[in-house]
């Protein structure tokens, strides 16, 4: 694969699937600097993954897999960026917040997702984005029954919390 072919595929993937990358970034980060950093990591991993994509799965599944794996590993080194002085290219922000009206319920949902540990966060994102148990098992590398158990617990947890949210009428 030539660099140019890789670049075309990369731009195409980024253009069509940036929404899912943004969701993962929002679920795994707190600050604008972290968002930039994770976005950079995901796009670089996405770029490197292009030659190994064999079309055995959908592009969405592939990108989700790459992005979640990157996010999980990124979390471990997240703290080291807090005290780092910004270099010239870091100061140039990669992502600028959109101007759309913020849905409070969606913000609440992201807050709840933030409270989960790294693994449960991944499963919740996959679940909310409608992936099947089989796809989730393949992305996560665990059995479907294991996925099922985790999903049941997460669903119960989220619906219980949403009831409290309804009750307080926020």
């Amino acid at each position, binding site marked *: 694969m030539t660099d140019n072919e890789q670049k075309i595929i990369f731009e195409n993937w980024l253009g069509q699937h940036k929404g899912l990358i943004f969701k993962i970034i929002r679920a795994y980060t707190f600050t604008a600097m972290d968002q930039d950093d994770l976005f950079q990591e995901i796009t670089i991993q996405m770029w490197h993954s292009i030659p190994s994509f064999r079309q055995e799965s959908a592009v969405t599944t592939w990108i989700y897999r790459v992005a979640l794996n990157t996010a999980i590993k990124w979390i471990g080194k997240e703290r080291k960026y807090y005290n780092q002085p910004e270099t010239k290219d870091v100061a*140039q922000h990669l992502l600028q917040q959109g101007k759309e009206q913020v849905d409070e319920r969606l913000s609440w949902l992201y807050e709840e997702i933030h409270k989960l540990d790294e693994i449960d966060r991944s499963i919740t994102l996959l679940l909310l984005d409608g992936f099947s148990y089989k796809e989730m098992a393949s992305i*996560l590398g665990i059995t479907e029954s294991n996925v099922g158990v985790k999903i049941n617990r997460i669903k119960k947890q989220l619906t219980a919390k949403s009831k409290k949210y309804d009750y307080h009428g926020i």
Partner: protein
Amino acid sequence: MEFEELQQIWDSQNNQSLYAINEQALYNRILSKKKQVNHITNTSELLIFIVNIVGGCFILGTTIYNQKVNISMYILSAWMFSSASYLLLNRVRRIKEGHQFERSMLGELKHALSTATYQVRLSQAMRWNIVPVGLLSILSVIEDGKSTWIIIILLIFFMLAFFAGGWEHGIYRNKKHELEILLTKLQHESSDDNH
């Protein structure tokens, strides 16, 4: 709210653009990242390899050149060449093993854990390697009949290196431990929940 409602709220963002991408900045970052070829493991392997080979050659060269009969020096250079070979073998094994992991989250975590385990093992081996290198260096200085001060300075130097090695080893061990926790969370929860 039922879960289906949560899903609807989640889907509502599909029609929104949360962020705008600064494409030029992204391109600049990818280019700069591509230049950072040397990963921590590669760099430390290369450094240890060079130190052992150059050190071994230097010690052997000067001993032969000066026509000294200093057994400790010969053993020390042989030891350093062996350390470099051991490192090279481990590096080949590490790179080979790196291709065996699948691209799932479990596979990626296992790969990261395998690299971390390698770093822990390497830092431990290199830390304890300071002991024979230090002892042989001091013995060779004694054989040469150098002053006690040189022996004391060497002793302090190797002790400091040993403690610094321990500090480095601790960093890798903590990193490995974090990965083990993640892996346990991913793998073993279903059996915990079933009990």
